[in-house]
């Protein structure tokens, strides 16, 4: 791709990654969450694939698929965390510590440090979607390049 596209990609990639992270991070407070944030971040990866060519990223395929598996394992493992009560029980909510504040009563701007395992699950899903969509785009691009030749 031309230098214009590459330069714009260099500028937009951090923005899309940060915005994706923001959407994942605030999944329990605002619209969005793991899937949406992961898709936003993956669009950044798609831009890189388009601008710099898939062959330069071909070596990262294994990394992406490992990250995707890890996201899935982390999500299921967070479900197992609640087994003291029931599967998926939110043991971290309201317990203090990480995401452990209790939700304030009445209208409020929202406290990020609440909701227990939900934000962690959002992160797990976010990484899974980022890696999964990224790998799909990368594979399609690699496949297309091989056929263009």
């Amino acid at each position, binding site marked *: 791709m031309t230098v214009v596209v590459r330069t714009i990609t260099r500028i937009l990639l951090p923005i899309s990654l940060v915005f994706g992270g923001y959407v994942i991070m605030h999944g329990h407070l605002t619209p969005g969450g793991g899937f949406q944030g992961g898709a936003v971040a993956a669009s950044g990866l798609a831009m890189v694939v388009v601008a710099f060519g898939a062959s330069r990223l071909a070596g990262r395929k294994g990394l992406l698929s*490992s990250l995707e*598996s890890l996201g*899935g394992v982390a*999500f*299921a493992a967070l*479900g*197992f965390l609640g087994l003291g009560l*029931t*599967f*998926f029980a939110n043991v971290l909510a309201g317990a203090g510590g990480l995401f452990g504040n209790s939700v304030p009563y009445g209208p409020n701007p929202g406290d990020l440090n609440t909701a227990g395992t939900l934000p962690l699950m959002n992160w797990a899903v976010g990484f899974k979607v980022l890696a999964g969509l990224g790998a799909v785009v990368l594979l399609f691009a690699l496949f297309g390049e091989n056929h263009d030749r």
Partner: protein
Amino acid sequence: MSVHAPILAIAVPLLGGFATPLLAKLHRRVRDVWALAVVLFVGACVGYVAVHVFTQGIWVYVLGARQPQETLVPGGFPIRIMLVVDAMSAFMGIIAGLLSLTAFPFALRFLPEEEGKTLALTLGLLLLAGILGMAYTGDLFNFFVFLEVTSIAACALIGFRTWTSRAPEAAFKTMLLYSVSGLLFLLGVAFLYGEYGALNLAYISAQLRGSFVDRLALALFLAALVMKAAAAPVHFWAPDAYGEAPAAKTLLLVVNTQVSLYGLWRVLFTLYGGLWDAGVGWLVVSLGLLTMVVAAFMALVQTDLGRLVAYGAVSQIGYMMLGVGVGLVTLSSRPDYALVAMKGGVFHMLNDALTVGLLFLCVGAVEWAKGTRDLRELGGLGHGLPAVGICFLVASLALAGIPPLNGFASKILIYQGSFRLSPILSAIAILVSILLLAGFTRAFQGAFLGPRVEAQGVPGVFLVSMAVLAVGILVLGLVPGFFVEGVVTPAAEALWHGRALYLAAVLGG
């Protein structure tokens, strides 16, 4: 831990599936041991759940609650996701557990490493998780989610051999049908959610008024699940799919169609059990008859062993629909013989799992030995592979309902029940069995009889997997009474008049 058994049966294969690619990076053997351990654990879980449910009644498990039995939030509304395992769900769980226990050891040896064995094992575990989720869930939206999980995993398994020309085509066809079926189901759920503001199956069942929207939702559920269960006239994806998926994984696809039928029974008997209409029963009966006749005739003309067995499998779906459909028609008017037909239909699910499972394993063994499934090229395998030939013969005879094998035990119940509704029904069912016998005799003759040919020997683990299913076929055929009394009757009665118990288990009192 044992209080969590129903959810562990779903969550462990889910976790196991995601972890499989990671473990494969450590070592192939670690991955194989892991996959086997997961399947064994799932088998233990479904067995434990079944014993518990058959002895102590419905098992409710609420996810994310303080206690597993806390079904209602203050105000008396079931808002959480829950699993409701009654005898019918536990029965489906047994079928899934049994077939995965035979399919996975077979698959570990059958799948070549260079063809992406890791991915096939991952997808197989995810498919198992989805199947058990569909069987155990007590929530309509969750049922849809697990339906989609099975759809995606199944389509990927069907299109697994991407380098062939037919596998991607079969996967595309299946994906189209599965997507439409999933969307129809989701639309039905949306209608009910819009009307009653709930997704819990038991809660909606208690509220159903029989309005026009309710009937529309019933039609959508019926269409979606019939499509997914591969009944005629939307059966055409199944022969392609069964034929193209790796043989060992086809067993899971067979369970997948059966669990869709289970979903149909759940919708008809539990969700809509309160408003009864014999017309729906006649619809199920006629679809069942159409399925068995069309599939049996199609089986006669196949030249590919895999597709022939696949059409045999589709025709058996027709028997299940006939049996349970007769039960639906006569639910209120003639309960005495309706229950016989329903027992036959439910029992046939277990028998079909064993016979069709064994047939597909034989197809896999033939493919392993000769590298082809084309009946025009095969022949004489009985000399080199006598055990495979005997297993194929036993399974074919069982499929055609020849005594003393298990297919006869369930078909005789279906014949009896449907005969008293209308003799024509059982006459057609018997005729179809004869057609199937003809088709499978030809297949046996074509593949196993004839002059001796060179063939690669099959590994011992294949024979062990096949022997387990063959012994099951013989045992169920020789002493059916024990299983009918102990397992099938509770399952049929859970559908039959278990609705009140099901609602009480979730909603209390």
